[in-house]
């Protein structure tokens, strides 16, 4: 297994490599393959990009993103302005479903609420507002309540895994309790983990996916 100091070296190189990140105030610590990011990012987008960069590195098993946001801009963005910009971004991204979602802003911290029929709507809502200036944190409390219920969620998810070029079905098991899916087992990278999630969430009727997967190289 890759040594922690090698993982740290690679994580630091990957952060420096990413042109969207100014890594000056970002520090990393690695213990048993778990990476902690601490220090400061210029905005929420950079904080998120740092996490994505770390997840690309071989050997990283878990990530704790403790970056605080310290804006470099001229002045602070007011909460009403953040709310306005966030709503604009949401409307552009989800022209049909934006009305099901509520945006609350307090001191730069955004909370998304509401109920939608599909998980992709929930995900895209969060993605849409990540780049709004002034945001310090996003909590996505949108509920997914599917309109269509499919009888056999388990075999649907397993079939999706079988089709996938990336997911290795030998190491992942799917358990379904009502409309809740639990994924257990090992994946080789975060890309595989994301694909497994995507497949699990695509099953009509799924209301939550519990991730008990471990990233092991």
């Amino acid at each position, binding site marked *: 297994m890759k040594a922690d100091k090698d993982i740290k070296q*690679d994580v630091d*190189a*990957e952060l420096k*490599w*990413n*042109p*969207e990140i100014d890594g000056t105030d970002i520090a990393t610590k690695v213990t048993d393959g778990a990476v902690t990011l601490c220090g400061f990012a210029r905005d929420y987008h950079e904080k998120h990009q740092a996490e994505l960069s770390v*997840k*690309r*590195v*071989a*050997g*990283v098993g878990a990530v704790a993103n403790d970056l605080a946001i310290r804006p470099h801009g001229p002045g602070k963005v007011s909460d009403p302005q953040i709310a306005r*910009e966030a709503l*604009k*971004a949401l409307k*552009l*991204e989800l*022209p049909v479903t934006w009305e099901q979602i509520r945006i609350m802003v307090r001191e730069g911290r955004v909370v998304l609420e509401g109920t939608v029929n*599909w998980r*992709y709507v929930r995900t895209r809502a969060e993605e849409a507002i990540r*780049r*709004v*200036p002034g945001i310090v944190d996003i909590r996505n409390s949108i509920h997914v309540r599917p309109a269509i219920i499919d009888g056999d969620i388990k075999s*649907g998810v397993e*079939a*999706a895994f*079988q*089709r*996938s*070029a*990336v997911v290795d079905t030998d190491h992942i098991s799917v358990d379904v309790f009502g409309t809740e899916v639990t994924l257990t087992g090992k994946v*080789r*990278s*975060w*890309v595989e983990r994301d*694909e497994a999630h995507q*497949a699990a969430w*695509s*099953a*009509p009727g799924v209301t939550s996916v519990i991730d008990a997967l471990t990233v092991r*190289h």
Partner: protein
Amino acid sequence: MKSDDEIQCDIENELNWNPEIDATDVATKVTSGTVTLSGFARNFYEKHQAEVSVKRVAGVVAVANDLAVRPTHPDRLSDPELAREAVAALKMELPTSWQSIQIVVHEGRVVLEGTLEWQFLRERAAAAIRRLRSVVDVRNSIQVKPVLAAGNVKTDIEAAFKRNAVIDAGHVAVEVRGPEVTLRGEVRSWAERDQAYQTAFSAPGVMNVIDELTIRT
């Protein structure tokens, strides 16, 4: 190895499984792992999503996306309205570089022109436009003109490949001529291919990446 019939069946299931696509008018044909999509999509976003779904399926080696976009939305945007929405979308996505991009709209077809410093910015511009509902086609003619001087591009990219959890660095060769990088070799999936392409474009000084990678099934 998977037969063409099996691949076709998997693709049809994958398309039906994707809640963002209405696959009613989408037909697929598979010959030796090469997939041709024909028929109709309701907008460009759906056409693009169909292609992304196909690339997730194991055994797919190449994709020809011949879907025609037939908008069904009754009150479609006029060209001036679409152009305004496109500018708003770009401003939100690229707050510091949107002014370097020119947008030309004709009958719902959008052409992006201009110059940006990084490939990832170019990708984000196209992604922002793709999401707009009234778009029939997107052509990305933005050029990448790097500002940072190149270091040792070949060594840097090879090191980035080695760090990466998804890329099998032993099977991918990097060739550099001036600001142009050529990637050759074999990858196991489109996910790996995308990672290699994006990573190569992250090296300072790179203006173009030629992808000669093949997918090994």
